[in-house]
């Protein structure tokens, strides 16, 4: 068969890329080989548009055991314990089939984590939907949430934190990002680098079907009229099989049988075998007739490109085959030796003893295209905000507008659909700044959270990039954890568009600077481009997933007020930055101006001081101030507890609206006992921290002198009704 331009195009390859392939191969590829190139050279696998930018991120640190480049990042939390974590997007499949798309997103990220020898201990997600009034939003929300729950609940890993947001920029392109966190022994981490020749390459897990053959489904329409509808592009998740695969892999990992292991994610068998060989500078030979297939008459092309879920590829030490087979059979899983490592540095594919394809591994991996795409800096638009007009709103009504809005409503409609308690170590469930999960059988714990700020990033991508890292860092601090490292999922539009590429580059600059300043390295991540339709790109939406450590789990801290008549301190300076605020968006539908600036020094200094106060046991509760400003943060503390507040009207302030709703960064609210005030002030003054004593807690009422007084139960009701009425 000759490869026509149409076939090349349908494989998502540019004609120039095809010329390059021919040069590398010194001949024309056959269809199977073309399919393999298309899988390895696409954006998702090759990171061809993003690589030069990603390289700039800080990835090193004392705490880092493994940075980006493996299935997941690994960090050291002491005592031979390691945490393995990563976030990944499943945006497009979730839009087409929300339940299965979201479910398989969770399944995929879990495999990335247990491939490395870690038992997953927590799941998180960041989900973004279009406007609630868009006709598709409701069923997408329903499907995605039950899909995430359906997979995590069934496999028995708690879903402990996340974010759920609505913004019309996602009307035609929702975001579904899932993060998994696992625990491993530091000296028992498994990698994907092949070593040694003539080692058995083993296929384990589910059988291979015709699912997810993207390029293929279209390309093959040329060959067979009826093939189109035979090839679903959405996979169905099977959490039950994944649970078996998880247990079987962890059982096999107890001894020294495995040389290398890699899950079959995007581009399935192709990318897993190529990556293992490439990392080990080896070749790999596969006998495709041995691949366990779900359907009859599957071709090598289909086997190599299938994205069937719940599968793994393992390279075994000599003589371990029978031992390993027994384990997988015990768990009712397929186990087949389908090939071996070679010294040819080629991917060699045979089908019934006939050579059907042969490509240099380098051509697929290290020689994949790398683009330095054009990009432009964001032009800063002056805000047209009429400040006088906004100062005239009724304070309490403005607050109610924010509290009752979809984005700020209580998320228990979502989180009650996730099992947060299974595995018995969830110390802090959803609803706090970060979740806390105990390390099994120890009295230490990790804290985890995910954060994003699409509006900030749209308006000024670099500040937005800084802000999400800082907010994420702050959220971990607020539960008493020392932030260690992050993973990131970069959801952007079309990278061939210079503005989108500019947003990408600038967001990364911001992320980089923040991570460097805070010593908060990036250890894993994922890039999702081409989010959008009809030339309308989504707002740039990088999502940051952070992990921190709580070394001594004596009395975990959260944002719930604990007592009557405690003192409330606001740490950090309030300038009243109202542009890009929730207040403007929910009250006036204005999304205008610049996001609040980030002052790295204050951010770090304030955060470390708060962590210090927590560690010294001087705080009753802590909450960071983020979206919605001081007033919303105070409300969240009150609504989750049985106490209200009494706050003096600030004296030196320009205007209460800006003071209470402004979204200045680097701030925390801290609840302390009156008796501890002197001790607390000492710590703060020693570290040159700006703070204000703003008021006290009280029973029943949420009160700002001269501005409002409401029963906290009423506020709670206002904050809890949206989802139930939607």
């Amino acid at each position, binding site marked *: 068969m000759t490869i026509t331009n149409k076939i090349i195009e349908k494989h998502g390859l540019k004609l120039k890329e095809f010329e390059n392939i021919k040069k590398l191969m010194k001949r024309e590829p056959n269809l199977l080989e073309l399919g393999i190139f298309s899988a390895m050279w696409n954006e998702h696998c090759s990171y061809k548009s993003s690589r030069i930018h990603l390289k700039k991120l800080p990835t090193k640190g004392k705490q880092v055991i493994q940075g980006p480049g493996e299935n997941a990042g690994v960090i050291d939390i002491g005592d031979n314990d390691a945490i393995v974590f990563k976030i990944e997007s499943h945006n497009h499949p979730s839009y087409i089939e929300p339940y299965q798309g979201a479910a398989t997103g969770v399944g995929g990220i879990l495999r990335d984590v247990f491939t490395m020898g870690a038992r997953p201990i927590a799941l998180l997600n960041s989900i973004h939907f279009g406007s609630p009034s868009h006709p598709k939003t409701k069923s997408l929300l329903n499907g995605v949430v039950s899909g995430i729950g359906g997979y995590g609940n069934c496999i028995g890993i708690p879903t402990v934190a996340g974010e759920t947001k609505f913004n019309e920029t996602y009307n035609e392109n929702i975001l579904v990002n899932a993060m998994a966190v696992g625990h491993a022994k530091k000296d028992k981490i498994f990698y994907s680098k092949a070593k040694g020749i003539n080692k058995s390459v083993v296929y384990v897990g589910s059988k291979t079907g015709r699912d997810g053959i993207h390029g293929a489904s279209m390309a093959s329409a040329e060959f067979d009229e009826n093939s189109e509808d035979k090839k679903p592009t959405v996979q169905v998740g099977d959490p039950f099989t994944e649970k078996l695969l998880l247990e079987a892999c962890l059982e096999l990992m107890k001894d020294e049988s495995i040389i290398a292991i890699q899950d079959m994610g995007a581009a399935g068998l192709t990318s897993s075998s190529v990556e293992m060989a490439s990392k080990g500078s080896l070749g790999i030979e596969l006998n495709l007739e041995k691949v366990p297939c779900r359907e009859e008459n599957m071709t090598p092309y289909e086997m190599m490109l299938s994205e069937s879920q719940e599968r793994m590829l393992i390279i075994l030490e000599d003589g371990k085959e029978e031992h390993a087979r027994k384990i997988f059979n015990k768990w009712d899983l397929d186990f087949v030796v389908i090939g071996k490592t070679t010294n040819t540095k080629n991917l060699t594919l045979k089908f019934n003893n006939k050579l059907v394809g042969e490509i240099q591994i380098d051509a697929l991996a290290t020689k994949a295209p790398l683009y330095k795409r054009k990009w432009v800096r964001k032009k800063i638009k002056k805000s047209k905000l009429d400040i006088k007009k906004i100062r005239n709103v009724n304070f309490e009504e403005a607050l109610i507008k924010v509290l009752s809005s979809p984005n700020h409503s209580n998320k228990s409609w979502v989180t*009650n659909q996730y099992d947060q308690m299974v595995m*018995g170590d969830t110390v802090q469930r959803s609803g706090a700044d970060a979740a806390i999960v105990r390390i099994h059988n120890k009295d230490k714990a990790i804290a985890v959270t995910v954060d994003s700020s699409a509006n900030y990033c749209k308006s000024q991508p670099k500040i937005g990039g800084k802000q999400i890292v800082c907010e994420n860092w702050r959220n971990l601090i607020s539960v008493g954890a020392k932030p260690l490292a992050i993973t990131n999922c970069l959801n952007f539009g079309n990278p061939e568009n210079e503005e989108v590429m500019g947003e990408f580059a600038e967001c990364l600059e911001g992320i980089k600077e923040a991570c460097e300043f805070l010593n908060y390295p990036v250890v894993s991540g994922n890039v999702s481009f081409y989010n959008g339709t009809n030339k309308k790109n989504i707002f740039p939406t990088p999502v940051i997933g952070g992990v921190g450590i709580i070394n001594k789990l004596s009395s975990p801290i959260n944002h719930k007020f604990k007592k009557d008549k405690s003192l409330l301190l606001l740490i950090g300076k309030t300038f009243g930055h109202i542009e890009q605020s929730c207040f403007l968006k929910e009250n006036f539908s204005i999304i205008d101006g610049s996001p609040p600036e980030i002052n790295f020094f204050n951010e770090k200094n304030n955060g470390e001081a708060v962590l210090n106060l927590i560690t010294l046991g001087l705080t009753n509760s802590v909450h960071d101030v983020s979206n919605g400003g001081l007033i919303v943060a105070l409300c969240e503390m009150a609504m989750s507890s049985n106490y209200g507040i009494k706050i003096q009207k600030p004296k030196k302030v320009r205007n209460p609206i800006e003071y209470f709703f402004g979204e200045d960064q680097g701030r925390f609210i801290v609840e302390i006992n009156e008796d501890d005030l002197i001790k607390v002030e000492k710590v703060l003054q020693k570290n040159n921290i700006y703070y204000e004593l703003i008021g006290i807690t009280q029973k029943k009422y949420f009160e700002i002198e001269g501005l409002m007084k409401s029963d906290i139960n009423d506020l709670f009701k206002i904050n809890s009704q949206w989802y139930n009425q939607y």
Partner: protein
Amino acid sequence: MNSSVIVFPGSNCDRDIAVALEKMQFKNKMVWHKDTTLPKSDLIVIPGGFSYGDYLRSGAIAGKSLIVSEIIKAANSGCLILGICNGFQILTETGLLKGTLLRNKNLKFINKDVNIKVMNNETKFTSKYNLNQILKINIAHNEGNYFTKKSHLEELKKEGLIAFKYCDEKGAVNDRSNPNGALENIAGIFNAKKNILGMMPHPERMVDEMISNTDGVNLFSSLINK
């Protein structure tokens, strides 16, 4: 006291219950579903989770496994049997407990702390609780909507075979305090001989102050001191 926890493919609260049992001084063994003999046990626990993915009907497929005939034998000879969540569903599928667990009324998985009320404290499972004591216990299930025939419901009531009912924090048993639509707010039941308890809430999740509360402790201490 010796306890055994039966592990099916897809069980996922097996470790949690083992931790709780050991904390409460049980000598516990894990039993793989393909095993054909049970270790000597005073208590057999069928844990929560998604045995066989909850495919077909929750509990249906585990209810057909080999070990089940051993469990039935043990039950008939008076061994104590506790089925939690998926374990309760499995017990109804094996016929050891009557009735069945339908989809939650709102068709959603529900995970939250709910209040339940102790309806009978004169059993080996509940003797350490007070009658009508209100407990706060976590639930996590898709199918917890208990249903049974009228005649069986009458028997449950007459013989004191209802173990727990969902209620609110003040003890009121009504539609508003019913999370999943269960018949008469039933959260757990005994068999006629009261040596088998099936319940949807997870007592093993409530034995550690750091994680939640300790309202589940007395269930285990009732058993160990029986």
